[in-house]
């Protein structure tokens, strides 16, 4: 691969000596972004944008409407994917914002932001909820699982995730994190669902690509394997 060519953000550039060194030094200093992947680059842009623009707007409750000691304490501990994290949470903050922008768990997607699409689905004490329409302060003491907490620690995919891949369930993929969480929550509660039960359990998740049958086949396939 010619790394001295125009920067292509979609390529992961390989480890190894710079081309200038191979060429024996000299004045040529090609620009080579060694570890900049597209995903990390975008993450950096998103995060810095949020710090600059968001802090003044999203979390402007730093100057609360009424300072009252009986109100909720902003600092709270939140158990997400088995880890307890201490976070500063505004009273009007939703769980979706907290996991994405405070904890950096961007697997959870915020689609409609009004409890009508399911992309933001996470589990709280084993039950699925819309994180976009849940106040984070309500989640004190709850055990929250996002899509990042579904696969095993060594990276082995959950049967639902593997089945979704096998059944080609995700098309654009935006609804997939929510579909995975909904599917896993169903199988945790009911390892042998009927197709109708699976349909009901997955009915709170929209898929704009219309891959519902694929997701349903994936859940039923995973149910046979769990």
């Amino acid at each position, binding site marked *: 691969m010619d790394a001295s060519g125009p920067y292509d953000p979609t390529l992961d550039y390989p480890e190894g000596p710079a081309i200038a060194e191979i060429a024996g030094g000299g004045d040529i200093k090609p620009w080579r972004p060694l570890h900049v992947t597209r995903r990390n680059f975008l993450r950096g842009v998103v995060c810095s944008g949020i710090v600059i623009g968001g802090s003044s707007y999203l979390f402007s409750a730093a100057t609360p409407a009424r300072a009252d000691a009986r109100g909720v304490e902003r600092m709270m501990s939140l158990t997400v994917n088995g880890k307890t994290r201490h976070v500063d949470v505004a*009273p009007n903050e939703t769980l979706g914002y907290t996991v994405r922008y405070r904890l950096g768990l961007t697997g959870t997607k915020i689609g409609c932001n009004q409890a009508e699409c399911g992309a933001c689905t996470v589990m709280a004490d084993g039950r699925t909820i819309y994180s976009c*329409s849940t106040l984070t302060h309500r989640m004190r003491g709850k055990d929250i699982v996002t899509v990042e907490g579904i696969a095993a620690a060594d990276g082995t995919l959950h049967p639902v995730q593997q089945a979704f891949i096998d059944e080609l369930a995700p098309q654009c993929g935006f609804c997939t994190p929510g579909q995975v969480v909904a599917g896993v929550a169903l199988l945790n509660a009911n390892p042998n669902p009927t197709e109708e039960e699976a349909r009901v359990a997955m009915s709170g998740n929209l898929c704009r690509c219309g891959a519902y049958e694929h997701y349903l086949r994936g859940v039923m396939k995973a149910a046979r394997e769990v």
Partner: protein
Amino acid sequence: MSDVMHNFELYQPDSIQGAADLLGEFDDAWIIAGAKDSLGWFKDRVIQPSVVVDIGGIAELTGIEETDDGGLYIGAMTTLTDVLENPLIRDRYPILSSSASQVASPQIRNAGSIGGNISQDTRCVYYRTGFPCYRAGGNTCYANTPTAMNRDHALFEVSRCVAVTPSDTAPAMVALGASMVIRRKGEDIEVPASEYFIGPEIDITRMTVLEHGDILLGIRLPADWANARHYFEKVADRNTWDFALVSITMVAKMAGNAIEDVAMVCGGVQCTPRRLTEVEDVVRGEVPGAEVETLVRRVASRGAQPLNFNHFKIPLMENLAARAVRSLA
């Protein structure tokens, strides 16, 4: 439309008294239970209270227990999922299980409370988007005009406002003869479901008798209709999320083949759940069949005054009433 919520001070009292004190202290305090409806209001920036009181942490508001008279008491904060999966309710009041199972989506049922579901505000699109209509304290109705979008609106008992009850479980409460336990000014009062839901002629700005400062503690289900035959059907544009265009809720007791007693309530056609007393009178003592169904169709929608775009609700409610009766055959 949807925006970041405004700033508010959030209180999470751990006792009913604590919540009542906060509501008494702040004039614009807003009470949230499951918050499925409230957060929508906040995000749309139509309602912006500076104080929000979250009653989710009050343990005594949650749970389902048997009462001495053979009925059940359901705490107002009990989630809809807990209601529909509860074995006692499944066993004695299956009508409530089946109506709760049709509310919104699984994720909303996991968070939304039964108290919130029966007490929720109307879904009139004009009211919801902040038009200064009668219900919002203004002096006109935007839904009752020749060109307005009033497909979802009322057929009966219109008084300036044409909004309808959106709840799937409220009709079951009326049919079962439930009563609501409310903490008002330090005292617990009990209001029967038939009086709990109020229409615009009583107060155009509210759907229930709940006033500012009141807290709905729970719902008492009497034993009258325990183990009765039941029928629930909801017709909506989508099976998930959507509110009912028309829903039918029926409980019935049979004596042999004949209908001994029946309570039939229709949702989505009036500001309150509409008890179909004329249908009940027609079918009581009769054996279900084609003749009775014809009579039921005749009387089910008697007195309906459709708006420009909701005529379809008339045959819909007639057919639903007939199907409910047919289910008893």
